[in-house]
């Protein structure tokens, strides 16, 4: 057996020998089989490393193998190389077990059980906006908890391979920043407020936890910190600018409300004063007519006002309103009073006209003889109608203000308004404020990350 082996090797090593010479070698059939088996196994070792085969590190010592095409094709060494490559690949996966996929905008997390799990940015948004829970978020990034003491929600970040990876955290911050920038129209909305608080909390967490114990070099740390600070500053300044614009609009609305109120009150005062003057005249005349009728007083009054059209209207109204109060005796008294006084006077007053004025035939006729007709629609008219107050215009203006400011006017619901407005109870004020917006329902504690996050000393 040994002889045949040496024979075969000898034969192969001598390249001068031809194939015919190999055939001439006298060996039996068994030896031929052995020869075939051994050449298959030993063949590579013959050409490359007959002495180095005992070496422990085949991969390093066989660098020359790569230069020889014949050897690369051999299965044995190829298998060894593949195994080594797989080991390296596994190590890399362990190091980078969170990968951000730009196309799908999602994070691929290698779980502790070596399972690949995908977390989308939309899932994070859903959790922030709607509290739609997600196991991966709660396991690797943060949780939203309700603090019973301050009665606010809090973002509590979890120290994990996700949050410790500053590049991944910056990817998340970039996504939130882009989302806020793309939804500038809704910058005053509740969701954007939540995102801004979340953004702030992440930055605080990164500053307090990650950057303090970071493995990165100084320049990279400075770059990250300044980048985060810049991003947040830009976002906050935009927001403040929007809020100030909103405050300006509120001021203008206040001014217009003040004008409307002033207008309404002045008109109302005008109506009241006119009504009062009417009432006073009505009362004084009524008193004079019904109680003690003094002819001289009436004549003096007539002389004083020279029987203007207004007075005739007044007296007509009074008489029409109080027709029932005037009994026949008083009418007769007045008539005799006028006839007597007319006889004494210089025919200054047309008695017949006055008499006619009191007669029932002319009670509905406004255009009395020789007297100016009263224009009911003139500005001088003391009877102010409802249309003159322009209440409909005021209502429309108020409705417009209500629509613009998103505050319900609730004109139909009068009782609730009066309850809310004119009660000093705190509860009613709460109801009132809760009617406008439900911001208080989702208030977040902006100091949670500052208070709850761990603090490490710088180790640089």
């Amino acid at each position, binding site marked *: 057996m040994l002889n045949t082996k040496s024979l075969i090797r000898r034969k192969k090593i001598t390249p001068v020998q031809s194939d015919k010479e190999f055939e001439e070698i006298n060996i039996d059939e068994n030896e031929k089989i052995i020869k075939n088996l051994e050449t298959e196994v030993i063949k590579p070792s013959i050409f490359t490393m007959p002495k180095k085969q005992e070496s422990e590190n085949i991969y390093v010592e066989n660098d020359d193998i790569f230069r020889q095409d014949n050897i690369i094709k051999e299965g044995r060494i190829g298998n060894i190389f593949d195994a080594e490559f797989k080991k390296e690949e596994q190590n890399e996966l362990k190091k980078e077990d969170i990968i951000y996929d730009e196309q799908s905008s999602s994070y691929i997390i290698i779980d502790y059980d070596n399972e690949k799990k995908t977390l989308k940015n939309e899932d994070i948004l859903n959790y922030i906006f709607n509290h739609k829970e997600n196991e991966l978020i709660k396991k690797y990034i943060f949780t939203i908890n309700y603090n019973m003491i301050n009665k606010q929600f809090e973002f509590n970040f979890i120290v994990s391979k996700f949050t410790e990876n500053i590049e991944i955290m910056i990817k998340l911050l970039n996504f939130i920043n882009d989302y806020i920038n793309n939804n500038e129209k809704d910058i005053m909305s509740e969701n954007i407020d939540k995102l801004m608080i979340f953004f702030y909390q992440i930055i*605080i967490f990164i500053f307090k936890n990650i950057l303090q114990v970071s493995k990165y070099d100084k320049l990279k740390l*400075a770059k990250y910190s300044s980048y985060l600070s810049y991003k947040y500053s830009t976002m906050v300044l935009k927001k*403040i600018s929007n809020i100030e614009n909103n405050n300006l609009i509120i001021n203008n609305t206040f001014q217009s409300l003040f004008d409307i109120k002033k207008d309404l009150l002045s008109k*109302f005062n005008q109506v009241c004063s006119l009504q009062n003057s009417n009432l006073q005249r009505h009362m004084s005349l009524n008193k004079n007519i019904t109680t003690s009728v003094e002819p001289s007083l009436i004549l003096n009054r007539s002389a004083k006002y020279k029987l203007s059209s207004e007075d005739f209207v007044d007296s007509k109204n009074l008489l029409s309103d109080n027709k029932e109060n005037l009994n026949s005796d008083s009418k007769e008294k007045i008539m005799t009073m006028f006839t007597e006084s007319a006889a004494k006077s210089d025919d200054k007053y047309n008695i017949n006209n006055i008499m006619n004025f009191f007669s029932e035939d002319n009670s509905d006729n406004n255009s009395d003889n020789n007297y100016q007709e009263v224009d009911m629609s003139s500005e001088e008219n003391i009877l102010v109608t*409802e249309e003159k107050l322009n*209440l409909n215009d005021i*209502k429309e203006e108020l409705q417009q203000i209500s629509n613009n*400011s998103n505050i319900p006017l609730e004109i139909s619901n009068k009782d609730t308004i009066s309850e809310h407005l004119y009660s000093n109870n705190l509860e009613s004020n709460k109801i009132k404020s809760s009617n406008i917006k439900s911001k208080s329902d989702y208030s977040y504690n902006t100091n949670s990350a500052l208070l709850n996050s761990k603090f490490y000393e710088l180790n640089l």
Partner: protein
Amino acid sequence: MDNEIILEVKELLKHIDYLEINLSDEFQKNNKQILTLKNNLNNINELCHLLCKKIF
């Protein structure tokens, strides 16, 4: 007629007051939010400043 006008004016005045109170609330909330945001901004800038001071 007079009573109707008076009631209507009274009701309108209530609505105006209601709007004014709510607008005032919103104004106060906005101001409070501005203060909070400015405070947050100061915190971030301060942290950034402290970190950079420690680094260099």
